[in-house]
């Protein structure tokens, strides 16, 4: 039928893997409740499939063939690729929909040059969102990736174009489709600075994002500056931009906190009007 839901949420291995280390339990559980709420919204949308725009971390894509964009095209995926004990998410088979994927990919390819993948081992970047959004793994997932890890990175204007292309592709399908972008905003994941968060930078970025202010968002395209202000993790704003572009309508920031640095990311939940 069309795109019926679009939102964004944070991922990070700590969100599940280091849950038991958290001191600020109240804040943690508040965040978990908002993710639960996001799941309810997606379920209420009647979505038959969930597109996850991710920023995976050298689990499937390496510099031997690093695509600017890739979309999965399989009836089943596996995850997590990480040690399940480390991530605290059991290894499982996640349903896909190769036929729907192929139609979406073919449509996207008319304007944006995405790779496709007939297999994909999900890392925490997808498994943590799924753990909250489809915890019984009973909804078909279509993974999509933007290169936020290995420079030269995907330009922000192309990430925006990817979101628009996904929107057109979803609207051309008979199925009801939900879409989430999952990234971080400023963060320094897996480095000695893990836990550092630039809250002011995050809030300003989120303001632009919720306002669908494309011009302001494109000004984050200087990777050197983003790295300085927002860390390597800041490169993952591409996933949020694509989700906003797919939605087209104004965003509602449902949750943000910088008070869970043990998760190594500012924790965000938001949805967009489909316009």
């Amino acid at each position: 039928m069309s795109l019926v839901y679009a939102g964004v949420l944070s991922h990070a291995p700590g969100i599940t893997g280091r849950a038991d280390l958290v001191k600020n339990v109240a804040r943690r559980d508040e965040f978990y409740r908002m993710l639960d709420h996001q799941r309810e919204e997606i379920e209420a949308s009647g979505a038959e499939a969930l597109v996850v725009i991710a920023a995976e971390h050298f689990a499937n894509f390496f510099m031997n063939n690093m695509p600017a964009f890739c979309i999965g095209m399989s009836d089943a995926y596996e995850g997590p690729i990480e040690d399940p004990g480390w991530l605290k998410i059991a290894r499982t088979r996640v349903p896909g929909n190769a036929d729907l994927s192929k139609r979406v990919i073919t449509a996207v390819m008319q304007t944006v040059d995405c790779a496709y993948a007939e297999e994909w081992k999900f890392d925490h970047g997808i498994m943590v969102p799924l753990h909250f959004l489809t915890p019984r793994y009973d909804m078909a997932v279509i993974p999509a990736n933007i290169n936020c890890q290995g420079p030269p990175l995907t330009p922000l204007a192309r990430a925006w174009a990817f979101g628009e292309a996904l929107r057109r592709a979803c609207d051309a399908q008979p199925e009801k489709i939900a879409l989430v972008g999952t990234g971080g905003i400023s963060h320094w994941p897996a480095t000695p600075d893990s836990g550092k968060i630039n809250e002011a930078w995050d809030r300003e970025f989120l303001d632009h994002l919720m306002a669908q202010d494309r011009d302001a968002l494109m000004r984050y395209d200087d990777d050197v500056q983003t790295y300085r202000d927002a860390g390597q993790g800041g490169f993952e704003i591409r996933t949020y931009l694509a989700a906003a572009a797919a939605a087209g309508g104004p965003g509602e920031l449902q949750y943000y906190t910088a008070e869970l640095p043990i998760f190594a990311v500012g924790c965000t939940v938001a949805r967009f009007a489909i316009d």
Partner: protein
Amino acid sequence: MSLYQLQKFLYVLNREPAAQRRYRDDLDGLIADYELTDEEARALRDGDIGLLYVLGVNGQILMHYAAFLGIAWFDYLDFMREGIERHGPVRAGVYAMTGGGASFTEEEGAR
């Protein structure tokens, strides 16, 4: 080119059970399959997280190697900081401009 090989070693190790078996059974043979400098090979042979970090390995690759070696999260962070102290700033890759490595979580401070 050499950082590429070093990271590829760890990328493959993180992904492939066969490489993990070979790491345990025949580490020297596995290392020989990659074009590495002596320093890089030594860092792998010693599981030297700090040196690997300074050599430029991306944390998204390195943290899984640390987990594979059974290193706890906060120790992993400490090893990177010690690496910088011992070997100087990160030499290549995305982190060549990274910060000093203070602790940013109360959980770590409270250990």
